[in-house]
């Protein structure tokens, strides 16, 4: 059982979608924080391409919910300018692939300004963006680029995997004085789950053990968390107990929880949709190799996207990213009794 969920009061929990949870987090925070405003392509009357800003325009009006021209660099740049002069901007980048258009603003401006100015500036900027495959949108609308951002000191990176985490992590992001990139998998937006009605936060740097098990640790992010849980169910039928750990934030990374789990199970499988080469899984594997090597009973396995661009064709798209069978097979290859 999730530690965060266990800490929450049982009252006021209802099932809503991931997209609704995001909109709820924004709505409630905008009521509390008059400096918070939202800008992005189609975030106004349209409600965001995936519904993350639905209803905000009606309540807060066009000054605080700003439809923008297709200018990702200027959106993030203006977000930085607004943030260092006292506002709390939330910028939605319609597809994660488009963060490439704003990379200078994210990496050289948002991430660096506080440091370069010797701590005089704060950059309370949140960038929400959908990532991942599954909608047959081909190579420029399907990528998982979290490793780019995790690599840059000055940025925080969150990857909520459930509606509750989508709300709780976003509230934390909106209250954090640092630039935060929140990655939302496209296929998660319509998924439903229990979410507390009242405002709550999920702290950064606190992994969630979504399932406990003694035989193998599966560290999974984003959409791969639910796939890993399904894989764990399948494995349980064969008597293999998998522990599924969702880091929830890559920066900061809850190394302690991952290390503790590996010390218990002696085996580690890392699952992410991003391509394997240079992916964040390499970082997790390195942490274990450096800090818990003696506890390993088997080599570390990475189950990740193939090192290919995402094709339009449905079969090629599906085969480029891990599925349940891949996770099951990876675990079985490590647990041979």
């Amino acid at each position, binding site marked *: 059982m999730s530690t965060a969920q266990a800490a929450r009061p049982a009252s006021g929990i209802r099932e809503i979608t991931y997209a609704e949870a995001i909109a709820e987090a924004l709505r409630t925070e905008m009521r509390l924080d008059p*400096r918070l*405003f939202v800008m992005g392509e189609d975030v106004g009357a349209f409600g965001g391409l995936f519904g993350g800003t639905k209803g905000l325009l009606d309540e807060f009006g066009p*000054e*605080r919910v*700003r439809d*923008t*021209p297709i*200018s990702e*660099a*200027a*959106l*993030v*740049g*203006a*977000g*930085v*300018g*607004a*943030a*260092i*002069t*006292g*506002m709390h*901007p939330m910028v939605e980048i319609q597809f994660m692939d488009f963060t490439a258009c704003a990379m*200078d*603003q994210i990496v*050289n*401006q948002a991430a660096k*300004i*506080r*440091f*370069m*100015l*010797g*701590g*005089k*500036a*704060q950059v*309370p900027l949140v960038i929400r963006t959908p990532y991942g495959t599954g909608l047959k949108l081909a190579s420029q609308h399907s990528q998982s680029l979290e490793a780019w951002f995790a690599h840059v*000191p*000055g940025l*925080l990176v969150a990857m909520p995997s459930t509606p509750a985490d989508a709300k709780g992590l976003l509230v934390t992001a909106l209250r*954090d*004085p*640092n630039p935060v990139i929140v990655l939302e998998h496209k296929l998660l937006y319509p998924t439903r789950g229990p979410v507390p009605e009242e405002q709550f936060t999920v702290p950064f*740097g606190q992994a969630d053990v979504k399932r406990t098990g003694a035989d193998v640790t599966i560290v999974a992010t984003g959409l791969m968390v639910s796939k890993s849980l399904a894989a764990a169910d399948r494995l349980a039928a064969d008597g293999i107990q998998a522990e599924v750990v969702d880091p929830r934030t890559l*920066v*900061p990374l809850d190394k302690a929880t991952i290390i503790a789990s590996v010390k218990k199970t002696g085996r580690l499988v890392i699952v992410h949709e991003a391509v394997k080469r240079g992916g964040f899984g390499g970082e997790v594997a390195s942490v274990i190799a450096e800090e818990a090597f003696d506890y390993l009973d088997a080599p570390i396995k990475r189950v990740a996207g193939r090192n290919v661009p995402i094709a339009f064709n449905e079969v090629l798209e599906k085969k480029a990213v891990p599925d349940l069978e891949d996770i099951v097979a990876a675990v079985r290859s490590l647990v041979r009794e």
Partner: protein
Amino acid sequence: MAAGKRAAASAKQTGLPIASGGSGVTTPDGADRIVLLTMMIRIRTFEMKLAELVRNLVIKGTMHPYVGQEAVATGVCAALRPVDYIASTHRGHGHALAKGADMKRMMAELLGKHTGYCKGKGGSMHIADLDLGMLGCNGIVGGGMGITAGAALSAKLRGTDQVCAGFFGDGGANAGITHESMNLAAAWRLPAIFVCENNQYALSMPHANAVAMTDIAARAAGYGMAGEVVDGNDVLSVWAATRRAVERARAGGGPTLLECKTYRWLQHSLRVKGPDRPAEEEASWRARCPIDRLRKQLSADRQLDEARFAAIEAAATHEVEESVAFALASPEPPLEEMELDIYAGRFIE
């Protein structure tokens, strides 16, 4: 956040940031000419000293000298109030001084010292003082443009009458962010002033080879904003054009693009030799020295004699020497500084 609050609280404040008392030698529309002259001389003296310090390796690394362009920073910033914002460029020392930055802390930063504006972590290309509305020099060409739009948006959302002037060069004019930011500011009628300092060259690339038209200001029409070509070596013209832009911005008339035609006298950066430019070209621009020009006007108007001019120069030299002494005597940043200020509130391994 705190800076924003302070700025909002004092948004009604008026007056030249550089005028402590003023000299009384004003134009009919109110520009204090002695104050403007003094600022230009301070910038020139500071920059010429840097050339020496870089040559002698007292300053490591490089910096981008502003010599020849003093009228632009001085004229623009004199038309702003302390609460107004500027965003600057890699060639930003003049902007910082004109917005009121402390020369000692600037010099200390240029020497990488802990007493500098950025604790020695920013250097020449990142000097900033948010309390003065100086949102930072920037190492990325065009880097201040998005910030300019954002600071102007921030002022609008907070309901203050602050404006933001964003400096960029003829090189930055061709960066994508400049286009996006100008369009955004125009579409939203933000209180922004885009100040292009066309100093005729990027690093070695002449402006004429980089674009097919003559005036960057002509682009303003394409954005639906006001645009104006300004003699960037005439501080009074710069001041007056900025005043018009500020008034337009405050009245809700949206942004303005000012193209200040000027020339950098020295090389692109103090560690890069050349490129060689035509000698007649350099001579013709040096003949249009912004400091000489104002000095001659003041002399002709019997507002400035040799003695007073010498006194202004001597004071600037003294201030610069004091700043060097302060910087040399200042401590290096401790090693722990490396891990500070990356994230507010904590270090993340």
